[in-house]
């Protein structure tokens, strides 16, 4: 889902920035340079999102029992009532291997997601982009 958001967001960015891309091409920026700009933009979003997701996910797992108790106090309703679920505390086990796999997968997916919009930006015809400005 996050990768799809990056694809759609970057495609809109490319469309919005078409005249600017065209001007960069008239200045002598190569297609590769334009592709790198949008790849770096997409990858930056992906890396930032992954780091934030990793930090929030780890903190959430490490403190899940405290969060459950806080929410129970806040709402006045026992969440995951031990008399129903037979759980004295919320179980959460972090497997470093799985966490690493998720992080790597998120990064790879976001990098892949940036490729198509970046390619579209690089292929943009500057004449067409400027003609309708």
């Amino acid at each position, binding site marked *: 889902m996050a990768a799809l958001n990056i694809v759609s967001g970057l495609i809109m960015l490319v469309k919005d920035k078409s005249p600017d891309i065209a*001007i960069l091409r008239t*200045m*002598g920026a*190569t*297609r590769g340079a334009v592709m790198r700009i949008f790849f770096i933009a997409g990858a930056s979003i992906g890396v930032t999102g992954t780091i934030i997701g990793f930090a929030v996910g780890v903190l959430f797992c490490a403190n899940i029992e405290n969060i459950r108790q806080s929410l129970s106090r806040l709402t006045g309703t026992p969440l995951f009532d031990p008399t129903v679920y037979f759980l004295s505390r919320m179980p959460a086990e972090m497997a470093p291997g799985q966490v690493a796999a998720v992080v790597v997968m998120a990064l790879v997916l976001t990098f892949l997601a940036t490729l198509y919009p970046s390619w579209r930006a690089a292929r943009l015809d500057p004449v067409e982009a400027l003609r309708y*400005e």
Partner: protein
Amino acid sequence: MNEVLRLEAITRRYREGEGQLEVFSGLSLAVNAGEIVALVGPSGAGKSSLLHIAGLLEAPTSGEIFIEGVAVSGLPDTERTQIRRDKMGFVYQAHHLLPEFDALENVVLPQMIAGRTRAAAAVEATRLLDVLGLGKRLTHRPSQLSGGEQQRVAIARALANKPQLLLADEPTGNLDPRTAGGVFDALIAITRSQGLAVLIATHNFELASRMDRILQLHEGRLVEGMPALHG
């Protein structure tokens, strides 16, 4: 005189429905270093297309483009891009400045694309903007500049990499007559001082008459001189 740009027997056809629209055919022109040439003609005559072809942004259907005597129309995109970067500058009717950057950064950018360091680029950008009367507007963003100032920054940007050829498509078309005259004077002064070859498409016959030569694009042919209607 050194010939900077030569177009030889250029034909351009566009696909239109099932047929083809021929904008011009067998068209030839040359612009020498230090020469300022006006390209006039009615809307839709193909002035912008001709500038795009001269600027290697659009391929002609047939014919050859020579930049400083070298045939370039058959070169791959990377080499045509390099020629644009090193030898050409573009000014459009709209300034097309990057809105997130200030005036100085907009002029620094093409130099950094050409591989110059930011510090060296900033020195040249400051000099150019100063010559164009914008020495006190360096840190202003395009939205904080007037139309005439925006177009002066666009001129500075086009000249930042010391091109041999300047292509301008209606550079004063969005400006009122007084501002247009000021921007045009600045453009002429700076390009003359650098000995550039300049090709300017314009509707403004008064400005065209102040250039070295006038080429009229009419019904796909180029003829020297002003349209008969305007004497």
